[in-house]
């Protein structure tokens, strides 16, 4: 790196098409060496595709990639690697049953051979220590906390003297404290001369770590790389969202959508939750662990009508089991569940739904919709299950009703007979909302309801949940995005290892909530 080139990584007119879909359109950007660059944009803006082109995983339809002043052959991982570009994926690809040392040896070099566990640990100890990954090298990947796994993933990418390290949405899975640790690690990489490109979607993270920022929207580059020192959060927010959409958004919503500043929920015009008997009342609920997640351990939770309760927590701390327990799909070990005044502890989901339970499940495409079935079938399933199985139906009438409902929820679709799988994520989620949010809904569970959605669809979902709340429904919102939770929840409860670890009221303090998420501080509960 003596005769340092102008740019560590440069893309020229990169266009990527998947069939009819244009994921990237004539994107040109040049990233200076030795700096931390952020690439931001909403879901579907093309950030991940951009990273994958640079890493050689995606062959661009048009355009060139230049690393350290030299054009490389595109669409070849080996070529990008040889040039010094490494990508750490959004979802980690570490073998769960390997030890740390084995992961480093085989993941990085791909060579076989005879080894001793001790020898391997010796070999990699220095490398990991140099990157500040502190862990026992003989522990297995699956037993490690997510922050450490990420550290190992980064260390693995840096085994071969990488000069450009791309991290795809590295903060999405981390707690606030974990994000601080990651950023400290990234700064040390910069000191070592590594060019780091971070794919992010929160402005305050960009402002906190990056030297430059590049904004993508709808597959096009809107701006950048701009020196971060010269842009305001306000301007970045408008660049990401687009001026036209930005005007339609409530200021707090917009800030939450792009993570402009530390979220707090300072609104004072919130309606006070109606006093009254709780819609959901869980007392000392414990479950056995199942394939869906870890066990619940003595959950006490009450939700009143007209209240949105947010569940915060690092993923995998029992949120899925909580939803399954309320939905009668988990194996209860103890405790009681009360729904709208009725004890439903032993009642199946059908009965709970009849009382007014509605679920927007975690996995939209598996638990929420049957992708190969028609829209009207998906939409009508809830109501059809209310009656007898042999009840006669008129498909034409159901299709008409479905048309009316989908139009009312502004779903973009061709006809009610089309397959649910042909809709975009946002529209698919709206079909679920159209089914699950009805006047009889008393408790609505919204599990990661905006994951993968673009800003317009996200704002739409928030609005729908708020309207249901204002009508007097109780809402349980599970999200790993604190901005989202803080913006629309009236109350936030933190989950940690299958237990509730603290309850918070607006205005929320991200420090305290973050501490509760990792169990760092006791006494956070109110």
């Amino acid at each position, binding site marked *: 790196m003596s005769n340092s080139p102008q740019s560590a990584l440069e893309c020229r007119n990169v266009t990527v098409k*998947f*069939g009819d*879909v244009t994921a990237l359109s004539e994107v040109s950007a040049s990233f200076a060496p030795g700096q931390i660059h952020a690439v931001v944009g909403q879901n*579907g803006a093309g950030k991940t595709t951009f990273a994958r082109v640079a890493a050689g995983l995606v062959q661009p339809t048009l355009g060139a990639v230049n690393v350290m002043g030299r054009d490389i052959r595109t669409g070849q991982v080996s070529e990008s690697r040889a040039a010094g570009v490494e990508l750490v994926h959004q979802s980690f690809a570490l073998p769960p049953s390997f030890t740390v040392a084995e992961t480093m040896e085989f993941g990085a070099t791909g060579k076989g051979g005879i080894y001793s566990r001790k020898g391997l640990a010796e070999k990699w100890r220095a490398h990991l220590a140099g990157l500040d990954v502190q862990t026992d090298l003989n522990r297995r990947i699956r037993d490690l906390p997510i922050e450490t796994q990420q550290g190992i993933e980064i260390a693995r990418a840096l085994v071969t003297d990488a000069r450009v390290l791309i991290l795809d949405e590295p903060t999405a899975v981390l707690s606030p404290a974990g994000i601080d640790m990651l950023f400290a690690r990234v700064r040390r990489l910069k000191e070592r001369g590594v060019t780091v490109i971070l794919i992010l979607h929160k402005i305050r993270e960009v402002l906190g770590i990056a030297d430059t920022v590049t904004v993508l929207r709808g597959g096009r580059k809107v701006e950048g790389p701009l020196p971060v020192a010269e842009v305001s959060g306000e301007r970045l927010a408008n660049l990401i969202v687009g001026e036209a959409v930005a005007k339609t958004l409530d200021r707090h919503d917009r800030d939450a959508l792009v993570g402009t500043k530390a979220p707090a929920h300072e609104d004072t015009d919130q309606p006070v939750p109606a006093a009254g008997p709780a819609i959901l009342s869980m007392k000392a609920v414990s479950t056995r662990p199942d394939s869906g997640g870890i066990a619940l351990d003595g959950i006490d939770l009450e939700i009143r009508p007209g209240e949105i309760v947010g569940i915060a927590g690092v993923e995998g701390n029992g949120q899925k089991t909580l939803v399954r327990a309320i*939905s009668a*799909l988990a194996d209860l070990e103890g405790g009681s569940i009360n729904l709208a005044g009725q004890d439903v502890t032993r009642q*199946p*989901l*059908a*009965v*709970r*739904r009849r009382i007014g339970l509605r*679920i927007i*499940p975690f*996995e939209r495409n*598996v*638990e*929420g*919709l*049957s*992708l*190969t*079935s028609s829209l009207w*079938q*998906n939409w*009508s*399933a*809830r109501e*059809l*299950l209310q*009656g*007898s*199985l*042999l*009840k*006669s*139906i*008129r*498909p034409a009438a159901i299709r008409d009703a479905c048309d009316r409902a989908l139009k009312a929820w502004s779903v973009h679709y061709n006809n009610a007979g089309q397959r649910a*799988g*042909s809709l975009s*994520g946002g529209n698919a989620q709206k079909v679920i909302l159209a089914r699950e949010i009805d006047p009889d809904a008393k408790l609505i569970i919204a599990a990661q309801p905006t994951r*993968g959605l673009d800003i317009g669809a996200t704002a739409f979902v928030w609005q729908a949940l708020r309207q249901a709340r204002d009508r007097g429904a109780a809402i349980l919102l599970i999200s790993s995005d604190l901005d989202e939770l803080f913006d629309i929840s009236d109350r936030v409860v933190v989950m940690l290892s299958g237990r509730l670890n603290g309850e918070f009221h607006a205005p929320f303090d991200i420090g305290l909530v973050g501490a509760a998420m990792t169990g760092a501080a006791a006494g956070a509960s109110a």
Partner: protein
Amino acid sequence: MKDSLFTVVRSLIFVVLALILCALVFQLAGYNAPVTLWAVLDGAFLRSGAIEQSLRWALPLFITAVGVGISFRAGFFNIGAQGQFYVGAISAAFAAEAVKGGPAFLVIPTLLLAGMLGGALWALWPGLLRLRSGTDEVITTLMGNFMAGLLLVYVTSGPLKDPSGSGQQASSRPLDPAYRISDSLGLSPTIIMIAVVVGILMWLLVNRTAFGVLASLAGRNGTMVEWQGARLWKLGLSSFLVSGALAGLAGTIEFMGPNGRIASGFLPAHGFTAILIALVANLSVLGTAVAAVFFGGLASAALYLPIMAGLPSAAIDIINAAIALFITAKSTFIDRVMRLGGPKT
């Protein structure tokens, strides 16, 4: 409705391709391919009496295949139609012994009902095993076929044995002609009526009841239906039972109609042809009717091939196998095209 007919036509294209492949094979084996194909067509539909003969085979096949389609729709791969067909016939034969001498208008419905119950029973245990302990129903229903086949051997050479029987096959005592629902040609108003009633009822079940919609959703994505609060076992087991009952009914029709008795190893391919028909029809009821007539035609032609083209009638097995191959290839082929067609994110 148009859609389902369209799918059948599309499937039949693959069937025709299979026939062409068979013709090539026959040609290579030293037979005259055009003559063979013509003989198939002639034996199935053209020569006098061929249509009646084809319908004789088509009607029981239709009844079984509709049932297979019902269970496939719900995501349960009941490939035990053959066993359920046998057990249905056996049950009816036992019932016939029990109610011997009663008035025909009571005995006939009783026997039909007994046959359906028997078939349903033979579907019940694999269904329960699947729902109770997750045992793969493909394995259990397949094993059930062999068990039913052996049961048939036992029954026809044991409890129901016809002492005067002199053929190579052990068979039961013949059914009192008063209770027969057709002559040995096997086509009668009663059988046609049964098939039509089954067709209408099953069409209504699939297309005009909540059950039809929910079972189809469950077959495509059981998890989603579970999150809606449905009890999958209810949808699955009832589909299984309907499927078994219809196969049992078809077995009973064969017993009370053309055969007039049950013989060990009779119609050994009936259940499998029915599965093929259900797949060709893409599980639609109307499509099943069309496909059943087509395969009924093939069955009718099988008897005619040795005379016309000098081919052994087993050639029809080759044709059936080729069709099975093409139909399976068709579904994966179409799946792949669809996957290529729709890139996600």
